[in-house]
């Protein structure tokens, strides 16, 4: 491999004009806002899930209080806050960070036009099966055309929707009366609590898949979420 590389980049990112020489390739894949939101959200999600599970420990059921049938006993070692009150402090603090990051991210994606990189549309549908075939049934690797393949877009778009749902269901659990119309749509406070829990597991399922893919795609790919730049991308 050559020691020099050619770089495709966003002009707004960096104004300084250094001297050029050529050959390899690198692409500026992840804009600053996306990376910033990604990593803050990583922390926020970790705290929200950990404290949420501690809150769940206070009443680990979705049925009646009398008689109480526990769904599962989540181990305290995998929870944040120590007790219900502590966990609520974490949850009610980090929910602002979680929501703030979400609003910043969505606002950036929409107004910059960068949402086109990640938004799963009807045109991406035909490309999903070849990717599934490749990942799960060892089919041929479909040619890469852009930063995210159709299956990736589907996963990320779903994850973003789950993030929005986690906030909406959480708002209803927190304020079922002030958000009574949202509560009504979810079947009332009691059901909103179930949805909130289910959405968390869906997000965790995404995170698991996400982590597996990050490991499979190696260091170069991982670095791009930190620096924005990917060396030698597998697409034009």
């Amino acid at each position: 491999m050559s020691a020099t590389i050619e770089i495709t980049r966003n002009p707004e990112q960096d104004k300084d004009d250094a001297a050029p020489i050529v050959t390899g390739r690198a692409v500026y894949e992840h804009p600053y806002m996306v990376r910033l939101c990604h990593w803050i959200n990583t922390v926020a999600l970790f705290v929200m899930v950990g404290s949420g599970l501690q809150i769940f420990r206070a009443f680990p059921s979705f049925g009646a209080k009398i008689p109480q049938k526990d769904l599962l006993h989540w181990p305290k070692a995998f929870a944040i806050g120590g007790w219900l009150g502590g966990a609520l402090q974490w949850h009610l603090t980090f929910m602002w960070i979680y929501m703030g990051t979400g609003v910043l991210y969505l606002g950036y994606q929409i107004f910059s036009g960068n949402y086109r990189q990640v938004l799963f549309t009807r045109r991406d549908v035909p490309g999903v099966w070849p990717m599934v075939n490749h990942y799960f049934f060892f089919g041929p690797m479909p040619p890469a055309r852009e930063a995210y393949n159709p299956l990736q877009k589907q996963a990320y778009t779903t994850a973003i929707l789950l993030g929005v749902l986690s906030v909406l269901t959480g708002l209803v659990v927190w304020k079922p009366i002030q958000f009574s119309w949202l509560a009504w749509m979810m079947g009332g406070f009691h059901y909103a609590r179930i949805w909130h829990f289910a959405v968390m597991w869906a997000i965790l399922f995404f995170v698991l898949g996400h982590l597996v893919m990050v490991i499979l795609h190696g260091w170069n790919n991982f670095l791009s979420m930190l620096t924005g730049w990917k060396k030698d991308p597998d697409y034009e």
Partner: protein
Amino acid sequence: MEESEEWVSKAKFMKAKNIVRRMDEKQFRGVTRRELLKLTPVIAVGAFAIPAFQKGLLKKGLGFSDWASARMFRTGHLATTFDNADLTPPAKFPINGYDIDDPGVDLDTWTLNVTGAVQKPGPYKLSQVQALPRVRQNTRHVCVEGWDVIGRFGGARLSDFLQLIGADMTSKYITVNCADDYYESLDWETAMHPQTLLCYEMYEQPLSREHGAPLRLQIPTKVGYKQAKYLTDLKVTNVLDRVGYWEDQGYSWFYGL
């Protein structure tokens, strides 16, 4: 390989946004290092992991949530009420005391002692509370733990009682003390809410000892621990000398639903 129109338009978009620039490996490292350093704000979140800051930051966060909760509270917005068919049977309505189920209140000599910014302070008998218009409502009772039940509650509007005692309507809070040494406080808007009751009956029966006889707060717009039982004192005030038992353990003060 056939390329869809969508892909062509995407490629055009990406090309329009990006320019090609050339630099050597060393310069590439410089650029990526700079981009990495721009992520340092993320480390600020790590302040929550420092023991010396943690407690204060979480208190600030909870305080911010309470502040936002007070802004979100709509004084004229009513909690959903339910049909009798939706009621949780009385036997399945949980009894949650923080200390004892029966603090041994003498129901015959009991009075509610009213103090603070009121024109007519002093002891009030249960009959005086019951002489106010009676409200019966089927509302959801939500516990901070996460469970919920629907109960039938009866009592006098707290706002009517505040009128009766000649409370200064510009006050900010009411505080209550209880026979089991529990204590609580309420924001004025919630105290004046039409569904906030001085509750003396459940399921059309006099309040049982376990549920707070003879008088408790019933506030459909608040979580359970705000709805103190076994009331003995009520104070109208602008200054909170005590906030609440569970709040002092670390729970939210406003916790409006």
